[in-house]
């Protein structure tokens, strides 16, 4: 049972999410409706994109805390170029280009100069926010053209063009990480950088491209933000980097690198957003939001940590037991080291072994 939970982290989270939806539905009739689901989905788009980008970086055993500022910077570039009369597709292209460039700078610092990623992105967090503010002169960008706001319009089934784009990104990312050789390189780099390098994996370019991907995702999140909100405040994206890291951890992406899946992140973002919406339905004052989010995050983490430790202990106990059993059958003079490899040890998911 324990092993099942530890191994199927994503499935466990999925079940918890369904149970939570059910419980809230019981407590507040009317929560379980198509319109709520559509609202939750729409509200989760920005965090979802940022979390996907952060996931790429975390899988390579780095961290990106600058994504909130990249979001703000690229959204500001989008808003300024739109208000300067540049056509929407070109403006979005510029915006994503700026995000990718910002990510590339992070990647250069980390993969090129060997700066620890948390330090590098902490610096660029301030740098990009400052760049954004000096671009806009500290003023909010308002009166965005209708063309961008139309992207967030409901297409009739509860979703918008933005929803389709995010689902597309999700699908591409999932396929990329699961099905392609390059996707595997990301996990290999994060799991054991030196080993990956010795296998001939270009670890530096992998880390670099993870940061570029994170920048592009944050920029795309900026597009979604601008389309949904309709204006770009100075603090656009402020603090979302921490939420994205929290969503990744909740979704089973290990901060030690090499473990994680797009599906897990997808579910955990929906879960976190659903809780925010549920508080509204349960008529809990908004100031409880952070407290509840923090409590849930910590509870899940502690439970997860305890389960993993229990699994570890059980594996060790099993190994010990079978090891002793084997020793008894063999000649007593035999050193135990030779017997150990012959014993079939239970195979568990890589994360259980950490």
């Amino acid at each position: 049972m324990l092993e099942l939970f530890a191994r199927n982290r994503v499935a466990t989270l999925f079940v918890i999410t369904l149970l939570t939806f059910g419980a809230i539905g019981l407590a507040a009739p009317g929560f379980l409706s198509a319109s709520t689901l559509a609202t939750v989905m729409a509200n989760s788009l920005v965090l979802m994109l940022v979390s996907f980008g952060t996931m790429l970086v975390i899988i390579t055993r780095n961290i990106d805390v600058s994504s909130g500022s990249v979001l703000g910077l690229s959204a500001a570039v989008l808003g300024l170029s739109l208000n300067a009369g540049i056509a929407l597709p070109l403006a979005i292209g510029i915006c994503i280009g700026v995000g990718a460039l910002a990510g590339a700078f992070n990647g250069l610092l980390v993969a090129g100069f060997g700066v620890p990623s948390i330090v590098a992105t902490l610096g660029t967090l301030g740098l990009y926010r400052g760049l954004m503010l000096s671009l806009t002169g500290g003023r909010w960008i308002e009166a965005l053209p209708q063309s961008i706001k139309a992207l967030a319009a409901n297409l009739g089934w509860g979703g918008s063009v933005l929803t389709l784009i995010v689902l597309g990104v999700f699908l591409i990312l999932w396929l990329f990480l699961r099905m392609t050789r390059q996707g595997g390189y990301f996990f290999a780099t994060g799991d054991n950088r030196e080993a990956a390098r010795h296998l001939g994996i270009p670890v530096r370019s992998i880390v670099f491209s993870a940061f570029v991907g994170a920048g592009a995702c944050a920029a795309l999140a900026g597009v979604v933000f601008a389309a949904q909100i309709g204006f770009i405040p100075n603090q656009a994206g402020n603090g979302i980097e921490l939420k994205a890291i929290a969503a990744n951890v909740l979704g089973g992406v290990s901060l030690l690198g090499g473990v994680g899946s797009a599906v897990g992140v997808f579910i955990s973002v929906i879960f976190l957003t659903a809780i925010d919406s549920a508080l509204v339905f349960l008529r809990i004052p908004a100031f409880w939001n952070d407290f509840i989010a923090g409590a849930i995050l910590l509870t899940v983490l502690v439970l997860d940590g305890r389960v993993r430790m229990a699994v570890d202990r059980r594996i060790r106990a099993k190994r010990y037991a079978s090891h002793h059993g084997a020793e008894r059958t063999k000649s007593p003079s035999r050193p135990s080291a030779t017997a150990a490899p012959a014993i079939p040890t239970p195979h568990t998911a890589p994360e259980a072994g950490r």
Partner: protein
Amino acid sequence: MKRFVLRWEAALVGLLVLEFIVFGAINPRFLNPSNLLYGTSDFVHIGIIALPLTLVIISGGIDVSFASLVGLCAIVFGVANFFGVPLPLAIAMALAAGVLAGAFNAAIIHFSRIQPLVVTLGSLYLFGGAATVLSGAVGAGGYEGIGNFPAAFTSFGYLEIFGVPAILILFLMLAALFAVLLHLTRFGRAVYLVGQSPDASRYSGLPVGRVQAATYLLTGLCAAIAGLVLSSYFGSARVDLGTATLLPAITAVVLGGASIYGGQGSLVGTILAVFVIGFLQQGLQMAGVPSQVSSALSGGLLVVVVALRHGSAMLPNLIAAGQKAMTARPRRFVEEKTND
């Protein structure tokens, strides 16, 4: 290694002198002694938190929850004051709240073995939420402050002793205490060793868990002190008092030479870095640079300085690799180890 550290602190002093020269040339009023002294009141609270944070980072951990803990402790004080608790007791309650919160972090990190960044990220939200709930409970609601403090408390923020702001003296005293604690005591040695290698420390009989727990407790305590100092300075306790300290405090520790991987760093470096960052902001402000640009510049400063430091550390590596005629690329381009 020691020479490297010494040189790093010398570089920080150089940076500080450079700031004085440049900003003094742009605006001579910057060098006005009373201006320099009173300017520190705007940033010493960052230093108060950066002190214990240095210990946390050297011992191989990280704490981001102090950013909301500052607000939580301030609100605890404000609420206690609201209900007529006498001033010394209210201050003690705020400090106790900080220590308890630190103990909470330490306990979760110790018993669940999750990375400290994740745990303190969770408690960042938890403490922030608790502060909001608490301030809502006394009707201060949302992000409004709790005010009406006794005059004895609010006057501390502007008190001066021999012409030096009391807050600055408090910081310097704390800094001296922490410097002794880290550099001259057995505990301080243990902090370095635990950061170098927790496993080796455990095998040599060091109380690894207790050392790490102590660093988080101290961070909680200092976050409470910072919360009290800020409430006294602003005359009101707000939930978001500490949110702006998150990045500058970590920046100060890293700029001060502490390795984010643990095992390296010095308190003198952190103290110098606090003044480098603080005076950079002040100087830019007095030079008429808008505050948004100055935030970009201080972020840029961190990036450039740290990139230079790591770049210079990998330079010999690169040269050596070049001499090997590109047969082998450098194995490691960072001096620090990457421990688990």
